[in-house]
């Protein structure tokens, strides 16, 4: 080559290189400059920011784990008064809402003209700018005064500064703020306390202080008021006060199974039960409180035998219960859930309040000072009022925010969906819109504004009186062109007045915090506890009046259908989080789809075809008919249900079946005279369990089966000719224990594991095909005694793992810390390890879930960078959050020491509300996992007979010798 040619080539090549490197797209915010680092940001390092969970109105504190400005995991805020480190399954999954594929990305105006077209193509949503949107709202607000109508503001439960901001906005713009709408508004409970004590509130139930807990209908471990906090308190009371807990319910719930004792009560019998207790406490003068004569006389006059007949309990049993309550030092009675959501639910709530008063619970274990703030929450009565306003065309503009914008949770008989159209101008503030619902939105709304998610926003929550939790952004900027509700309201107010916007909501908020002196607490600790007013209450003089029209008439005949809130979706509001469908229901193990739970007796009398084998996931279909409405649903045969009782989840019911109490506006959870018949069809139902009874299989061995070695961990002192597996381990042997007595089966661990480990959701079809990817699962086993055990099953990290030997390429092997590690990129996918795993905890990537679209769009930002997203054809499984172990080991190595106990928390352990899971180094005799395991009398390892030597111990008290 000539010298000139050479120079030419070099010149062209180097200029091509330079040019091509100029054209790169705008650097993503993943790239963080190391030269000029932002405050406290090291690339790849995890940071925790305090915020508050927004998935429901409880307001649990969370620590948002962020890496490179991406929120990748939520953990309960340690020390937060409500949840102290724990988070429920919905809370864990709520991070997916931030990155939800259905997030509304900018303000939109529905093209109403397109709605009538036969075939709509594309979206009916026309984007508009924020300025135009504000202008549009401001113009329309003016229309109200012109034609003598009013503008209304309807929201879901709102507390803290946002509530103040809404009041401020409504005051300035002349908008009428309606009582808030919540499906579970506890209207009867609040109305009863209002009648008895003049407090329209849900008080704080101090379970942690109780030594005897009696719950009637209240699903305190699932959805009632503050389930995570309650679970924590139950656990505390169990260990500190040897809590005895009896749960009464007419149907079955997870809470019932997890109580010390579960008692069935006949539908509608709860009020009778409570009447008996009220009379007992009054007659026996257990405390110095007694009923005024007027009140005593207004109580329904029912004989003890009638009470027994109506509750299904004997008089002796009732007396025993009353005596137990009377003799307990700190008894606590909680009545709620399905027991207060029925025709005599108001009476049940009234009588419950009375019992609580008479027994001295009020002021002791029931605290009105720190009650949940439901002051702004209305009931269906208020929705009825709204409908009346709409009917008479007295509403001009309507704002609907943070509630169900399509009013699908409202009983269909109220026809809100139709009536809202009478308002001239409707605005919704939403976070997500399901593409399938676009048309429904377009039919109602004239303008839809996208809200920023809590983790993109400034704000605060004061769900419990006096307790303010911070809400702060965790991302560098909002993902889409969204605003917080506060900012939107400030902008609208400015547009109305024509003035400039007075700063941002953040400024307004911080000024407010400064004024109350909360700023430092909120920014440092994440929450602020203000002094609360005196919680002392007295029996109101007018209490007797409340009983005058009380009618505790008993249950009607026929089948009864209970409509219960779902632990996964509540009233359906978490239904758009795919993970909440993917993770199965803890009782039925149904993941996707709707079903109705029926009793075994009913299944027999209807002669179900598929009642026996669960292996084939086809179930009998039943028609559930009530008041002329019929739903065809697959039937799940639920052990423990009494004959004639069926259960359906709240979000799955046809709204036309729902009814409510005219007096209080409480929605009924009980539907009487339901006809259930078999349609003759056999339909698919994605229930994950291949069996829910263990028979003789001893997965959970019989207590007293010689499994416990008190003071020793199971592997110690086993006489065997095989080499001691522990000889292999020098520094660590990671082990885990699950306390069967503490575990509530709630599934929070499952949800946490999904988010921590980048586990994809596979969708209904593949779940039905058995291809769910969960690394940890909660297996319900029903026993003949009417109980249910939840067995948390994850990789057992066996000492002699059957999976390790059979892998032809060493993709899975035993590391020197006892972990059965999985080298994902070495796996060729023979699935031999999966076949040979007796616990079936290995999960194969049948498809490339990234290709299937699970990580599309912003969802990819949720991926934990410390763990691979596994491609198709690769086996995966739990490795005790090895990425967290690695981080802890790195830190320990820097300091020249071993990892200490408590330094590594597995994701499942971290989020567990009852601390049922402990994890740590089994070689450290002082570690929590070792001490708890060695002290447990009835501990066992699953399928120990196989000699696999699991590192997971299940702990329990030895019940029988």
């Amino acid at each position, binding site marked *: 080559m000539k010298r000139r040619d050479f120079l030419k080539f070099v010149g062209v090549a180097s200029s091509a290189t330079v040019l091509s490197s100029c054209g790169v797209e705008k650097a993503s915010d993943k790239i963080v400059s190391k030269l000029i680092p932002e405050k406290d940001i090291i690339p790849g390092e995890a940071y925790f920011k305090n915020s508050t969970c927004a998935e429901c109105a409880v307001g649990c504190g969370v620590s948002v784990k962020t890496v490179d400005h991406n929120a990748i995991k939520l953990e309960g805020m340690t020390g937060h008064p409500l949840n102290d480190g724990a988070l429920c399954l919905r809370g864990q999954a709520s991070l997916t809402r931030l990155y939800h594929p259905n997030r509304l990305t900018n303000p939109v105006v529905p093209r109403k003209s397109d709605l009538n077209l036969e075939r709509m193509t594309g979206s009916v949503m026309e984007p508009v700018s924020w300025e135009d949107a504000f202008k549009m709202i401001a113009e329309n607000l003016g229309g109200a005064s012109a034609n003598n109508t009013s503008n209304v503001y309807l929201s879901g439960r709102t507390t803290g500064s946002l509530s103040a901001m809404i009041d401020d906005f409504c005051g300035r713009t002349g908008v009428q703020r309606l009582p808030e709408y919540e499906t579970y508004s506890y209207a009867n409970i609040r109305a009863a306390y209002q009648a008895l004590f003049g407090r329209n509130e849900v008080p704080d139930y101090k379970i942690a202080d109780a030594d005897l807990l009696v719950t009637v209908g209240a699903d305190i471990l699932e959805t009632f008021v503050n389930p995570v906090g309650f679970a924590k308190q139950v656990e505390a009371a169990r260990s500190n006060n040897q809590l005895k807990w009896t749960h009464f319910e007419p149907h079955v719930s997870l809470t019932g199974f997890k109580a010390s004792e579960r008692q069935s009560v006949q539908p509608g019998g709860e009020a009778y039960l409570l009447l008996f207790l009220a009379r007992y406490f009054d007659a026996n003068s257990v405390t110095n409180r007694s009923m005024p004569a007027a009140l005593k006389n207004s109580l329904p006059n029912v004989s003890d035998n009638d009470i027994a007949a109506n509750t299904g309990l004997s008089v002796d049993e009732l007396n025993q219960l009353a005596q137990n309550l009377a003799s307990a030092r700190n008894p606590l009675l909680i009545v709620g859930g399905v027991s207060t959501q029925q025709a005599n639910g108001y009476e049940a709530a009234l009588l419950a309040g009375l019992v609580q008063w008479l027994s001295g619970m009020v002021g002791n274990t029931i605290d009105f000072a720190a009650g949940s703030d439901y002051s702004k929450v209305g009931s269906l009565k208020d929705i009825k009022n709204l409908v009346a306003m709409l009917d008479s065309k007295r509403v001009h503009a309507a704002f609907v925010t943070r509630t169900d914008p399509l009013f699908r949770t409202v009983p269909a008989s109220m026809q809100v969906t139709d009536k809202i159209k009478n308002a001239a101008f409707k605005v919704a503030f939403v976070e997500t819109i399901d593409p399938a619902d676009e048309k429904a939105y377009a039919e109602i709304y004239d303008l839809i504004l996208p809200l920023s998610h809590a983790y993109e926003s400034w704000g605060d929550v004061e769900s419990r009186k006096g307790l303010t939790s911070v809400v702060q952004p965790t991302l560098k900027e909002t993902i889409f062109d969204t605003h917080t509700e506060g900012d939107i309201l400030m902008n609208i107010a400015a547009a109305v007045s024509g003035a400039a916007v007075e700063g941002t909501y953040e400024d307004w908020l911080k000024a407010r915090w400064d004024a109350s002196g909360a700023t430092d607490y909120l920014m440092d600790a994440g929450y602020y506890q203000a002094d609360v007013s005196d919680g002392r209450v007295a029996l109101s003089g007018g209490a007797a009046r409340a009983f005058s029209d009380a009618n505790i008439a008993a249950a009607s005949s026929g089948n009864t259908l209970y409509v219960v809130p779902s632990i996964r979706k509540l009233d359906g509001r978490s239904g758009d989080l795919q993970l909440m469908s993917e993770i199965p229901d803890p009782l039925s193990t149904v993941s996707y789809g709707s079903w109705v739970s029926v009793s075994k007796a009913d299944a027999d009398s209807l002669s179900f075809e598929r009642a026996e084998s669960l292996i*084939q996931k086809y179930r009998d279909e039943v028609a559930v008919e009530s008041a002329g409405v019929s739903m065809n649903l697959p039937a799940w045969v639920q052990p423990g249900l009494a004959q004639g009782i069926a259960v359906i989840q709240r979000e799955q019911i046809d709204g036309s079946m729902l009814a409510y109490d005219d007096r209080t506006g409480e929605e009924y959870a009980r539907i009487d005279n339901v006809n259930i018949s078999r349609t003759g069809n056999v339909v698919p139902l994605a229930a994950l369990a291949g069996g*829910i009874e263990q028979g003789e299989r001893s997965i959970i061995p019989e207590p007293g089966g010689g499994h416990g070695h008190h003071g020793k961990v199971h592997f110690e002192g086993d006489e065997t000719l095989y080499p001691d597996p522990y000889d292999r381990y020098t520094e660590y042997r990671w082990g885990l224990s699950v306390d069967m007595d503490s575990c509530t089966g709630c599934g929070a661990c499952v949800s946490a594991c999904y988010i921590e480990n980048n586990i994809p959701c596979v969708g209904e079809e593949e779940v039905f095909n058995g291809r769910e990817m969960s690394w940890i699962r909660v297996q319900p*086993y029903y026993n003949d005694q009417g109980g249910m055990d939840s067995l948390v099953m994850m990789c057992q990290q066996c000492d002699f793992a059957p999976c390790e030997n059979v892998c*032809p*390429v060493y993709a899975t092997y035993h590391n020197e810390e006892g972990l059965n590690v999985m080298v994902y990129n070495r796996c060729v996918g023979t699935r*031999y390890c999966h076949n040979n795993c007796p616990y*079936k905890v290995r*999960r194969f990537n049948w498809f490339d879930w990234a290709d299937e679209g699970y990580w599309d769009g912003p969802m990819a930002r949720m991926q934990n960078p410390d763990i691979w997203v596994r491609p198709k054809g690769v086996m995966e499984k739990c490795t005790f959050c090895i990425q967290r172990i690695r981080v802890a080991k790195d830190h320990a190595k820097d300091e020249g020491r071993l990892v200490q106990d408590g330094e590594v928390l597995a994701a499942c352990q971290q989020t567990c509300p009852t601390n049922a899971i402990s994890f740590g180094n089994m070689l450290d005799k002082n570690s929590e996992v070792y001490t708890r395991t060695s002290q447990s009398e009835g501990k066992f390892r699953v399928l120990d007979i196989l000699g696999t030597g699991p590192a997971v111990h299940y702990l329990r008290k030895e019940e029988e010798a």
Partner: protein
Amino acid sequence: MSSHAPNVNAENAPERDQTYAYNYKEQMEQDVFAAISKPKPMFFVALLISLGCVGIGAYSWTQQIVYGLGEAGITNPVGWGVYITDFVFWVGIAHSGTLISAILFLFRAQFRNRFNRTAEAMTVFAVLTAGLFPLIHLGRVWFAYWLFPYPNQRLLWVNFKSPLVWDVFAVSTYLTVSVVFWYIGLVPDLAIARRIKESKLQKTIYGIFSLGWTGTFKEWQHYNQLYKFLAALATPLVLSVHSVVSWDFAMGVVYGWHTTIFAPYFVAGAIFSGCAMVITLMVPMRKIFSLEKYITVDDFEKLAKLLMLTGLIVSYAYIIELALAMYVGHGNIYEYEQFMYRMTGDYAWAYWIMIGCNVISPLALFIRGLRRNLLFLFFLSIPINIGMWFERFNIIVISLAKDFDPYSFGYYTPSMIEWGITIGSFGWFFTFFLLFTKTIPVIPVTELKEEVE
């Protein structure tokens, strides 16, 4: 064909003189090589059907590679399904080839001379087919080479404790030895083909493959020694390869797999299915190629007796398996319920197909008249093939569907992709087999000639 052709069956061969022997050999040469002459249209139709099946299989496999193994029906907890069933099925088919040619050769059972060429060809093609399935069932087939111990910079090695690695060696060794054994036996016949074939091209090709065989005394001496040696080498392989395949299961922890009788049980099952497949192939071939004179009913009867014997061994294995599970009973609930489930559960149909085909139907062979009825033998061999496929299906699928933890029990339904690939495997096998019938003497001419010496 001569209407008064003598019965040349070895046992009752009539007295013969040199002329007769010469004529007979000439006649046989002509008859056998007539079979590999120009194909008739029907051949092409058959070949086209076979290739079509291969196409279906190739399409299905492509789908699976592109979208992932989820295209197949296998799922949690049934990680192995139709593919491994097919694998064991084809390895089983491959068995009787070596049995007939090597073991029966060492035992001087002359009737094997009628079948050994076809049986060996069947062995080679069946191993070629079987060898595809470990690849097909891999999650990441593009990394299949990781299963072989090859030197690499990262010092990554295979896990010699894994039965799957044993499988790799067992199957590849078996394929190698079978091919060599088959080819060595072919050489003198290829030399005849070189002599008979007229076209230049054919002469050249057969010439190359006959390795310059001229039929001298010295060549025959070496040939015979080598052949005996290879027969002796191949014999233990018959036992080892299927034993190793059975250990894929027997070494597992799953009840229904984890049992010591698996090695002999699988070997007997393999011979059973292999003999059935030989009958399935040879009965029509004998008819189509007019080889009635050389492959007689007596020969088939001997094969049928072998079928009967191995069928009884297989039945015995079923009984032992079941009896042990029932004997321990509730003492080992997992094994007990597994076998109860096989008989009465969701897959009971598959179990009873297996029993009907493999236990009941071979009992008919106790009747001499049926044993000697080729049409009956042919129609008997097909259900035995099906039954042996279901035997593997039962072992693999049902054991996995209901193992230890009730929560994880699950049902498996094969998908269209799996059936497509299974059809493809038959197409693949028959394509090779059809090509074989038109290129290589389907019965060993030289060995039959030896008989009349």
